[in-house]
């Protein structure tokens, strides 16, 4: 597993700079446009609508978790399909003592590192924007990474069953984008029509956003058990997703 991780890190060296640059760029753009720009209107028009929290402060943890979710989902789709189908590098790995589980877990470990980098940079930008009320934002980083992995693991399992990228567009359009918009990222899910609210509870992103928001607003202590439940849901999705991913990648490598 660590060998696969080493391979992915070696590949990453080539795109490292561009990747760091965009990791800073995305949060700066979003927090400026939506947090400061749009947020200015929100805060002025309805002062207490978010319970005394500025829109920027409300938005920051949601965007953090949602961005990491998107990166995790992407990393589990195209790069994995490349290793299985186009470049076939994972098949080269399968001809050595490595096994399918090494390929699956090594890639997940790599994704975890990538996501940690993205989440850390995002959090630094949040602090620079003054959008976090609590030093507990440090713990929002692993929470965001957990969200990303809870998406990456099942998507990796799905990718292992694909030969072409056709269905990725559908996955992102009908899966990831709606979750990005309706998981309490940009507005509280209480604003959703009543029948849609339970649907939001199914979203792994919502669980992550709730915890990250609690940490950054410093309100996590008000409902610590609930936070643990959110975390448990994410861990469960990650574990089951990883187990299925190992099986699917094993099966795929056997097929050749």
């Amino acid at each position, binding site marked *: 597993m660590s060998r696969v991780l080493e391979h992915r890190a*070696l590949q990453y060296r080539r795109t490292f700079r561009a990747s760091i640059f965009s990791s800073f760029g995305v949060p700066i753009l979003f927090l400026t446009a939506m947090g400061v720009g749009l947020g200015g209107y929100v805060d002025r028009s309805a002062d207490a609508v978010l319970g005394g929290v500025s829109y920027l402060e409300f938005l920051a943890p949601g965007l953090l978790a949602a961005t990491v979710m998107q990166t995790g989902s992407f990393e589990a789709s195209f790069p994995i399909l490349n290793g299985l189908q186009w470049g*076939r*590098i994972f098949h080269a790995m399968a*001809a*050595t003592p490595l096994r399918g589980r090494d390929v699956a877990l090594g890639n997940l470990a790599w994704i975890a590192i990538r996501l940690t980098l993205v989440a850390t940079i995002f959090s630094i930008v949040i602090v620079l924007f003054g959008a976090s009320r609590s030093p507990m934002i440090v713990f929002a980083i692993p929470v965001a990474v957990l969200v990303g992995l809870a998406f990456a693991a099942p998507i990796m399992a799905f990718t292992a069953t694909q030969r072409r990228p056709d269905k990725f567009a559908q996955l992102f359009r009908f899966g990831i984008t709606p979750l990005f918009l309706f998981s309490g990222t940009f507005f509280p899910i209480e604003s959703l029509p009543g029948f849609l609210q339970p649907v939001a509870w199914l979203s792994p992103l919502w669980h992550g956003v709730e915890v990250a928001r609690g940490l950054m607003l410093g309100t996590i202590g008000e409902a610590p058990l609930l936070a643990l439940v959110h975390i448990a849901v994410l861990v469960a999705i990650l574990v089951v997703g990883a187990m299925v991913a190992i099986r699917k990648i094993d099966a795929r490598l*056997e*097929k050749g």
Partner: protein
Amino acid sequence: MTEIDEALSPVTRASGGSTGGASSAPPLIRARGLTKRFGTFTAVDGIDFDVAPGEAFGFLGPNGAGKTSTMRMIGCTSPVSAGELRILDMDPDRDGPAIRGRLGVVPQQDTLDNELTVRENLLIYGRYFGLPREECARRADELLDFVQLADRGKDRVEPLSGGMKRRLTIARSLINEPDVMLLDEPTTGLDPQARHLVWDRLYRLKQRGVTLVLTTHYMDEAEQLCDRLVVMDKARIVAEGSPRQLIERYSTKEVAEFRFAPGIQETLDGQFEGLADRIERLPDRILFYADDGEAVVIAARDRGFHPETVLVRRSSLEDVFLRLTGRSLIE
């Protein structure tokens, strides 16, 4: 009996056939009734073979004969459906990673990492076998020399020619100093010059005592490299022996090839009786199998046949395959 005595004692080889002077050691690979099924499709249908240490063993057959499926089972990347397979005295089902650690695999399709440099491809592959970094670096430099890519070490893989990529794949497969090399169609798609370079390197490895197992649908490749081979057709083994044995057994010494002007060949059916031991009619030419090809040419002229072109040549594995299956190797 000590272990060494045991290792050196002669073993009765079930499949017979001479080997490249290494027939006294126990087989490195042993298959009995080896079968691969995909659903209802049988890709490999109960084949038997042994590969002895130091031998260059080939699977010759047309596309779809079951060669790659067999190689993938030997490579422990595809599970055996039925029958027995032992590799390096281990069971692929149980000891897959241990066996793979001692194999060098050159797959049909290149699986190099285009995002890395030539040398990095070797380094990271060595790491998969658990080699320390310094050892990977030492072996990588040696191997780049061996496959004549030393000056391309820092280049990306992407722009390399097909022949260079193949040589890099061969170098990569040697990073763990394997006991057995598995080469699946090592020169398919390469131009003649690149093929000869690959053959030359493989021949050197063979001289060093590396056991080679290869598949090919090129008879010249099989003749150049293989001490012994099996001919596969439709998931089964149809013949086994050294290239020379197979030619002696299934063909004549020489072949006279006649080409007639278009439309003429069809009108001559049944008029060649007695000219040769055996006659094969191909769409574009007629093959006369005889020990003396020139004699056939003279006899045919005497009978008043005037082919456009005449070629007398020695029998090859292509003729063996034609005889065994009634079809050409490459269609």
